[in-house]
């Protein structure tokens, strides 16, 4: 573990954001010039309900060190229910990956509203910090183009 907590390690985190709350919240963080770590790469979807939990597995397999799904707070979903479905699916996949030995710090979900740029920054900081403590994803990462 010692070498993993290397402070030089800059994790690569793939995030799935719903268009209406979290993506807007991340935009607001930008408009408000709130600085946060550059480790998160965002994929925009219309609703967190679109996020197939197998995306998490896929991202980790491709080499992402962590995955974040972010949607509207319960009750605020633009499509009324999508985030509830997302939450259910996430709960199962998160626990399952933990069961396989994937550190739960790598598999995160958050609610971030469109009006909360500060919270977006805090989420990113927390997720980035968490992934840093567990180090690079090395468990079932795909070997690129092996012979």
């Amino acid at each position, binding site marked *: 573990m010692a070498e993993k907590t290397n402070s030089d390690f800059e994790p690569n985190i793939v995030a799935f954001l719903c268009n209406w709350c979290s993506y807007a919240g991340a935009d607001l963080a930008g408009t408000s010039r709130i600085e946060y770590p550059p480790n998160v790469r965002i994929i925009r979807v219309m609703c967190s309900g679109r996020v197939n939990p197998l995306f998490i597995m896929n991202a980790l397999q491709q080499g992402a060190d962590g995955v974040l799904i972010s949607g509207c707070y319960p009750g605020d979903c633009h499509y009324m229910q999508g985030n509830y479905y997302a939450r259910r699916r996430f709960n199962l996949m998160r626990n399952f990956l933990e069961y396989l030995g994937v550190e739960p710090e790598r598999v995160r979900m958050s609610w971030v509203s469109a009006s909360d740029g500060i919270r977006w920054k805090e989420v990113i900081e927390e997720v980035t910090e968490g992934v840093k403590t567990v180090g690079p994803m090395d468990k079932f990462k795909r070997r*690129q*183009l*092996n*012979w």
Partner: protein
Amino acid sequence: MAVKKLSKEKMGDVLAELGKFRLIAPAKSDEVVIFKEIQDPGEVFLDYGNSTVPPKKMVFPQTETLFRFQVGKPELAEKNVEEEGTTVIFGLRPCDARAMSIVDKLFGWDYDDPYYQKRRELTTLVGMACVEPPSINCFCTSVGGSPFGTEGLDMMLTDLSDDNYLVRALTEKGEKLQETLADYLGDAGDRDEKKAEELASQAEDKIKRSIDPGGIPDKLPQLWEHELWKRVSDSCLGCGICTFLCPTCHCFDIQDEVEETGEGRRARMWDSCMFSEYTVHASGHNPRPTRKERTRNRINHKYSYYPERFDVIACVGCGRCINLCPVNIDILDILEQVVEA
């Protein structure tokens, strides 16, 4: 070359010595015995019946890169099998060794498969005679093999049921290997050889299942539309157990794995004629639309097409497909029905 003897105590040293090559030997993964590349001689597990997955995967890997490419560029980087180095497969059973010599015919037939052939050339096969038949479903003796058969092997070890193995080099490769191991080998006597012969004949007697395949290759084409195919395949699940675990099955699919950057590799990987998509055409048409046609193909391939082309049945009687079929589809049962039909 003289027949030698190896004291069981020295097996560890022999395996360590073999470690200077790429050593493949049976090892346990949990309770499952599989051939794998040995890093530490302690991993080798010789007290086994037969491996679940046949050692064919060591010469015909389940997934094998053929070459790498960059989309839009003509240059290819071909796989260099040579780099894998001299390989010793240690402890394989006579049926599996014989299977390799059967598959060799295919990979050297209308097209010399350089990957396979190179790997075979680099590989020395050290067999372990079956003093006890590994499974109730062994029937090697019905299809031209034997528990002590040497076909395909470069060297054979026989557990003399005392503290020694009888070691017999069978080919030039085997002799070379024997030289390498000379320090650990003693001379075998007539008594030892006699003992081995005795064990061999006892082993043959212990094989309980059999079939007379004599007329089958000629008969199969006549049974093409026979109702038995539907009946024997009714319960088939279409999984790949019987083919993937067959030491002679050798079908493969070729796939390109391409990154978004355009870098890619072309690889071949095992395929199974029992999979529903095996023969699906790009149009969506499938000439073998149901399990009936697929099961018929599997039997025909082994017992008709292969003998027709290569004069040998592509089945070595290892019994794996019978042991592991989830629904007890039994190749001997099918063959009996063929005989009776």
